[in-house]
């Protein structure tokens, strides 16, 4: 596997962006992904982002901070981010590391994440009219 060539796809479906992270990321790739997603949000005016980390076997403090930073930045741009499918071992390790990621929305799987975003979007729609 050539780590130098890896790019993480960002898929747009309706109002949402789906980002399946399927490589063990180094720091530069993580930073790159963050700005890529933000640019894509601006470009597509997506209302929600699902970041699927179900195949990630490790999330260290850098990637953890990148993910929670991502959520706060997207929130300022009026977009919700949901982190989907974290593995139990990763969750335990993150908590022990001291990164409890308060304020970050999480979902057990893609389906639940999508439901969560839809709920958000709908309550916003009913609020505004």
């Amino acid at each position: 596997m050539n780590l130098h060539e890896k790019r993480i796809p960002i898929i747009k479906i309706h109002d949402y962006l789906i980002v399946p992270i399927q490589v063990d990321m180094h720091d530069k790739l993580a930073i790159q992904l963050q700005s890529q997603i933000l640019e894509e949000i601006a470009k597509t005016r997506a209302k929600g982002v699902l970041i699927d980390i179900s195949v990630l076997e490790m999330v260290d403090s850098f990637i953890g901070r990148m993910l929670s930073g991502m959520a706060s930045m997207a929130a300022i741009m009026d977009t919700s981010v949901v982190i989907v499918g974290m593995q139990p071992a990763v969750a335990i390790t993150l908590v022990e590391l001291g990164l409890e990621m308060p304020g970050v929305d999480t979902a057990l799987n893609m389906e639940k994440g999508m439901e969560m975003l839809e709920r958000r979007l709908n309550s916003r729609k009913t609020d505004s009219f």
Partner: protein
Amino acid sequence: MLEFTYKAHCDLLGKFKIDTEYDIVTVRQTIRQYAKDMGMGIVDQTRITTAVSELFRNMYNYAGGGEVLIERGEVENHHALIVTCTDQGPGIEDIELAMTDGYTSGQGMGYGLPGAKRLVDRFEIQSKLKEGTTVRMMKWK
């Protein structure tokens, strides 16, 4: 140059250099494999992999890289995976401060060293200004 408190019979598993960000990824994957081969559970594998990732990042950011020694041995009646990271960086002025939660001197948020310490069973750090830093971590099987 540094003396550690543990005495053990160790087998060398591997020796690696951390020069680039890609090395961080490949060496931490290698260490995960060693942990797996030793029979560690999935959570312990994740703990040691995450802990070394924090250390490697420190080494890369502050000292431009360094060397990693991976051993397995018997320590205090435990099968242990032992990872020693050595760099020739600027050294740490106040180790106690560096080991405090939330403290950072660089761009990090200070989860690195104290976080890594919480993930392993033994954690020792020694540093000399302008000479470098050595960190040794052990994880029981």
